[in-house]
Structure formats: C-alpha cells, structure tokens
C-alpha cells in the first residue's frame, strides 16, 4: 500500500488505530460467516465520529472502497472486506453517551454491545427489546445495519422499531442527522430505509434507541411433542386464539441433542420442543398462559414444563440461544441458514427439508423462531470429506428456494450480505433491484460504501461458488483473495 496514503490514515486514527500487517489483518478477513474471506488492504480503528468522517473522506479521495464493521458477529458476510479496501472497525466507538429514563431513550456509539444497553438500565426496570442470540457480543451499529431481530421480535419488533435517530457518516463523508429523538420527523423515513441497509448507505456513529419498561409478569413454558408437525400445529392454534406471545421458538431432535451436549439445559429427548413465552400485565399473562398451556396439550404435547422462576427461564433460554454454537458438538462444521415462510406454511416446508435431508445425506438440525416463520436450518457437514462443503451450500440454497416458493423470504434477520446476493434475483425482479440500486446510488454514487453486498453481481471469471478453502499462500499471509 502507498506509504503516503498510509501515513494519512495514521494521522487521522493514530499509529495504534491503523492495522496493515497481514497477520493483524487476518482477524478482519471475515465475520461470523467464515466461508467467505478476504484480506483488506487496511483496517482502521477510529475513536470518534470525526475520525470516521475523515477516514471516509480520505477513502473518497483515494477511490478506496470501505466496509464498516461492528463486532464481526454477522452471519451473512455483511462485513466481508473488499479487496484493496479499508475496513472501518467501530469497536473503539463504544461509549454509552446518555441514559434518559424519563423519556425512555438511550444514546450510544455504534460499538456498544446490544446487552450493554440493557445492563445500564436494568436496575431501573427497563431493557432494550431486540435480542439477537449474539446479544452479549454484537454491536448496536451492526444491529442497525442488519435490522437485527431476535427471539422476542414477534411481539416487540425489530431494530427498526426501536431506533429513533442517529448520526450517519454518508458515503461521501458528510455527516447527517436522521430521525429525531422527538416523534414525527417530517419527510420520507430515512431512518427506516437506512436500518437494515447492511452498511451500504453509510455509517451510523451515534444512535438513539428506545428502551422498554420490564413487563409486570413473564411466564415461559417448554412443551414436548412427538413430531415437528404437532409442534407446528400448536403454534398456529395459539395464534388462532388471538394470542401474540412475546416469543415462540421451536427446536428439533438434532438441535435439542446439540444444545444438551453443550449447555445441559435439561431439554427432553423428543422430536420437537416448543418454547412459548408470554409477558405483560400479570392478570393478562395469567389467563392467556392458561390458554396456551391447554392449546399445547390439545395439540398433542407429551409433556409441559413451566419455568418456576427466572433461573429456570434463563436455563431454557440458554439452551435455545446456544443452539447454533452447540452444533459444533455434533458436527465438525455446520452452515446456518436463515429463511422465512408464512407461519401457516411451516409444516409443509419442514417436511420438504426432511426429505432433502434424507436425499442429501447431510444431517439438518432445525432451530427457529416459529412464531414468525423464521427458519434456521443448521446443515451439518465435514469439510475434510471432499465435496461435502459444496453439498452443504447446495442444500442451503435449496432450502431457500422452498422458502421463496412458499411466499417467504431469503433472509429474516441475518441479512443478504455477500452470502445471498445471488438469491436476490429469485425473490425480486430486475426492476425491483434496479430501483433499489437507484436509491443506493443516491447515497453512494461512487459505489465505495460496502460494495458487493445485497445486490447480485456477475460472477468473476473462473470463480466457482462453494465454501471457502484457504490457499497456502493465504495461510502464509502473503496473498489476498481476489
């Protein structure tokens, strides 16, 4: 890299805020989707919004693409570096700037973790509602980029429902204030457009979020079923009762086994479990919870365990939230898929996945947000077996095609990122994508801000889809993958 340019980045972020040695860069070559990797030319660690702005301006002058990165927990390669580009890591922008309990708002920098907000306000009886499974480590900036959800978004909505305003460094380096801590900002909802744009429209540097009062009562039950179909039937029956639980989660046998092996939550050894949580005023939860319990029994639950206290509830949730990582206990490698189907189509799509599992010879665990039809099939494979990695990718893609056919989506919460750009054309027409690209160009006419994400691009000459395998030169750190 050009020495003079390098020294300009150092002048902005300080010597300890610029990484350019190949070994240092390795940490940033991927996010939590490890099969897509790329060494950036440079990683910068700005410590203020004005440093972010200066870096972006310098990237513009030098014509270098840049990628913002939170804590690298994304599952779609949204923070995958661009060849020859700069990664702007926001981990040093990690201050909670203001806690305003009276107005139920907290102002944070993007590197603050999701759970940190709740930690700050919990003693006063408040919490931050969106709860992705990675909430202990994922950053709010990343949540904004991905419009992160979580188990409780069935009732409480996604990040976009909880972000009121933010400052953003636009792709040309201008800083703008979008939204407002007060209601009803005039004009088109740019906050709503920006949240979930996967880092392609700019970089949020100061974020105002809404916090929520802890509900008076929370009740959680774990119901065991003989089949996924029966569990799915129970979900539909609960909704048909006019009840919107705060969470409805389902796990199948393989996922249950994995969770048991990893964190011992004491789940029963059955074909499917359902975790249903209700919260709200005590009298409401009491009467609705009874209906939920009866409904589960009527739909064939073979056993029901009700969390007696917060400790038991935490144990159930630990088992659920550890499910992805736990797959490592039952398989050397696994691929997490994220697709959505209309809730009523769940049983049918799950049957198709079962058939696919038998045909492919790869085991597929299912952990999902059943309340909103968000599937997370975990496709097990062993990368040491030739061809299995590629097979896993094919199986994952086929599951997505089931989701699209059922009228669903190719991603419910993990994002399109670099991983699913080729599936976008199956969900949207060329015209749909063209208009979205026009909006993108209005923000980023020079295509420098996280290029290569969301939208399909012609595949590079000779490039073959498949899981990533590191080449020897890359292992030695002496070459980048282009």
């Amino acid at each position, binding site marked *: 890299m050009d020495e003079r340019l390098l020294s300009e980045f150092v002048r902005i972020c300080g010597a300890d805020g610029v990484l350019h040695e190949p070994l240092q860069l390795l940490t940033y070559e991927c996010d939590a989707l490890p099969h897509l990797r790329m060494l950036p030319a440079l990683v910068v660690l700005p410590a203020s919004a004005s440093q972010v702005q200066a870096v972006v301006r310098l990237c513009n002058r030098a014509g270098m693409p840049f990628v913002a990165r939170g804590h690298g927990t994304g599952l779609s390669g949204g923070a995958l570096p661009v060849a020859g580009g700069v990664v702007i890591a926001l981990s040093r922008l990690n201050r909670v700037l203001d806690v305003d309990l009276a107005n139920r708002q907290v102002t944070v920098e993007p590197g603050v973790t999701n759970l940190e907000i709740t930690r700050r306000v919990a003693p006063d009886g408040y919490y931050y509602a969106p709860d992705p499974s990675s909430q202990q480590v994922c950053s709010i900036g990343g949540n904004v980029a991905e419009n992160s959800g979580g188990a409780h978004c069935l009732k409480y909505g996604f990040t976009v429902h909880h972000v009121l305003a933010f400052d953003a460094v636009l792709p040309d380096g201008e800083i703008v204030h979008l939204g407002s801590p007060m209601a009803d900002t005039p004009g088109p909802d740019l906050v709503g457009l920006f949240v979930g744009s996967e880092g392609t429209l700019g970089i949020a540097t100061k974020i105002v979020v809404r916090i929520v009062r802890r509900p008076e009562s929370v009740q959680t039950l774990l119901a065991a079923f003989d089949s996924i179909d029966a569990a799915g039937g129970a979900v539909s029956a609960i909704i048909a009762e006019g009840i919107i639980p705060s969470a409805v989660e389902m796990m199948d046998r393989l996922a249950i086994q994995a969770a048991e092996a990893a964190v011992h939550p004491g789940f029963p050894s059955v074909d499917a479990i359902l975790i249903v949580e209700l919260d709200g005023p005590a009298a*409401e939860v009491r009467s609705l919870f009874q209906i939920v319990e009866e409904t589960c029994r009527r739909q064939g639950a073979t056993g029901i365990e009700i969390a007696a206290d917060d400790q038991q509830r935490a144990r159930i949730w630990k088992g659920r939230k550890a499910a992805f990582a736990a797959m490592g206990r039952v398989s050397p490698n696994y691929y997490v898929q994220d697709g*959505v189907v209309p809730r009523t189509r769940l049983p049918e799509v799950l049957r198709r996945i079962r058939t696919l599992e038998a045909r492919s010879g790869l085991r597929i665990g299912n952990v999902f947000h059943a309340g909103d039809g968000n599937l997370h099939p975990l496709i097990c494979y062993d990368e040491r077996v030739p061809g299995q990695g590629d097979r896993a990718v094919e199986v994952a893609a086929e599951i997505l095609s089931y989701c699209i056919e059922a009228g669903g989506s190719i991603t419910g919460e993990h994002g399109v990122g670099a991983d699913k750009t080729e599936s976008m054309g199956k*969900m949207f027409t060329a015209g749909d994508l063209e*208009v979205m690209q026009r909006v993108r160009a209005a*923000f980023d006419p020079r295509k420098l801000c996280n290029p290569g994400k969301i939208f399909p691009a012609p595949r590079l000459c000779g490039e073959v889809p498949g899981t990533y395998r590191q080449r020897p030169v890359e292992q030695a750190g002496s070459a980048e993958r282009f």
Partner: protein
Amino acid sequence: MSLPSVLSFLQSCNPAILQSGGVREAGPLDAIDGVQPRALVEPDSPEMLAELLACSSRERLSIVLRGGGTKLGWGGRPAGIDLIVSTRRLNRVLAHAHGDLTATVEAGATLGDVNRELARHHQWLPLDTSFDGSTIGGMIATNESGPVRHRHGTPRDLLIGIRLATTDGLLVNAGGRVVKNVAGYDLGRLMSGSFGSLAAIVSATFKLAPLPPASTTLVATFRDRQAMAQAVSAVGSSQLEPAAFDLHVAHESGPAPHLTLLIRFATTAAAIDAQIDDARRLLAADHIDLVTGAHESELWRDHARRLWTAAGAVVRVGWPPAALEGVLALVERIGREGASAIELVGRAGVGAGSVRVSGDTTTQVRAVEHLRAQRDVIGNVVVLRADLAVKERADVWGPPGDAVALLRAVKTALDPAGILNAGRGPV
C-alpha cells in the same frame, strides 16, 4: 395545459386510459390551495397507473396523487397541477392470510373497509385515522396515526411489503408478505412520510393484530398542568400496558383550561380491571370516569376528529414525553396571547400530537413561530391544515435538516423529471 391537450396526451399515452371511463375534467372542488388541476384520472389497474406516470414523466406533466382526498390540504401550495391521479379504483383487499396475521391491500382501499373485511376473522389493521374515507395509500404517504400508535406504532411500523409504480413506469416490489424479512432495501419505509413525492403506492402488505377481547377507557380530568404532567409520568414509568394513552388540552374563552387523559385498556376482562385499579392509584386526578361499549367507541371517534371539525390551523408537533409540562405551558401561553382557541390532542406516552389554533392569520402564524421557538420542548413542527394566507407566511415544513441534499438526491433518483407533488413537499 388545457383539457383538450390533456385528453390528447392521455390518448397518445394509452387509449385504454380514456376508454376505462376513469377520466374527467377537474372541478373547483379538486383545487388544492387554489391551484386548479386540469383533469382527474382514475386508473383501474396498477399497470395503467404505472404507464400514466411514465407518460407524464416524459411529457413533464405535474401530478398530485390522491387517495380518499382527506389530507390533500396538508403540505405546501402546489406549484401547478396538470393531473390528479386517484387510486380510488384500486381498492381491493387482495389477500387476508389470517393464519399468518397479514393482509395485502390496494392503496385506494379505505381503512374502514379494510378493517370491516379483516374483522370477519377477528383481526384488524391497528391504525386509526381522523377522517372518514382515509385510504391505505394516503395513510402510508402521510404516515398518519392516532391513539393506537401507543401500542401498535404508525403505518411504517406495521408495513411489511409494498408495491410501487415509479415515474419510469415500473411496478416494483419491496419487502414481502412475511412479518420477518430483511432482504433488500425497505422502500416501504422510504414511502412513509413522502406525501406521494417519490412514487405511487399501488398496494401494501401489513402485519395485523387480533381484535382485543374487551376494552375500557379511563377518562381522567385534572385541575392544572402539573398534576396532568405528573400523572403522565407516573403511567409512563409504570408497568401498565394501555392500548392507547392520549391527552386533550383546550383553552377556550373561560379562564380554566380543560385537561383530560384518556387511557384505554384493551385485553382480557380480568387484566382490564386489574390495570384500572392500578391506574386509579397512580393518577392524582380530579375526576375519573370509566367508559365502555358504544359510548367508548363514540368517545374515541369524537376525540380523533376533534381538531379537524373546528376552525383554525392544525399543526403537528413532537415532544419528549418528559417535557409535557413545558409543552402545556407553551400551549397555555399561546392561548393567552390572542388565540381565540387553542387545543392539543396527542399521544402522551409517545410525545406526538397536533395543536389546533384559531384566531386571525397573524395569530395563527405567530402560534407556529412560538411552537418552533422552544426546540428542547417541541420539535418537528409541521403545518398540516391551514388557510393559504397562513401557509404563505408560516413555513409549512419548518427548517430543513442537514439531510436535505440527501433527500434531493433520492428524489432525483426516483422522480428525475420532478413531476410528483411539485411544491407541496416535503421533497
């Protein structure tokens, strides 16, 4: 542009538009702020709407999109209108997937009609409007909301998918039909608050809510603004979960202001009773009434229309919920300084509402200036309804923020010829 030339334009764009019977000469009732359109066109298919926009863009015909026509007076004075394009004939409920709690409806369907249809499966699109005949498209474009916003949010919060007609004639989908979906840009939210300046909304998909099993409203009146502000703070920091939490403040001729809170509980009967008991303990009110059944529906209908059935300018405002006492003080001051009447209706928990101020033009203009002067107490002040004389003197949209260049770039990207909503804003 004269009517004959409009007709020949439509003929050359697509004769089917004229044949569909959806074209008529505009009359004085179609004028907006005194600006007279030439003709009114009502396409009967999304394709025809898209084609009409494309032809208009090529010929640079100025268009104002219209749903039920209930909020056409909102916004700045149009620079000129060739065509009013109405979505009146695109008014079907396309799908109600009750098992999935979603519905897809065309832009010209009214909220009332949609909710009558959804009620067959004990569900509803949890929005409310101050006007009979508000359409889904108009509610998205203005992001109109009412008391149930406290629980369910505004149209943008419930929107999960949208279909648009762009000015180059494309029919474009964004989002989808499932409640959880992060694929692609959220163009639906971009349309929210756009007032029809970027593209035409053809249809939209929403997440729905089950109809609540029961409902009761607690009406509390207060002697002074401190007591009311304290009550709002107490409810806001409590674990009560009302479906609506609204306030009404009025200063009319008499010396004492009228200060009321309306708190609606909509859940199981047992939970309503328990929460009302809790609320009574929290509220240091002068007087408390409980209203239910038909009286309750009537109460909320009157409340939603209150500002719009009386004279004067209606101004939308936002405030930090904890600054309510300051908001009430400001309203009282404006009332003392010459307004013949001033009232505020809004969402106490969210800090969102509208102020109606009546009096002569100067009084109304000064009221808007006052509302904009205390920026830590009141923000996002937008004149919704006002006489042209008031609009010409009070800045309708208020000072543009620092995103104005960005908004213009988005506008240029989607409406390069600038045919949509010229002069009315917000972009």
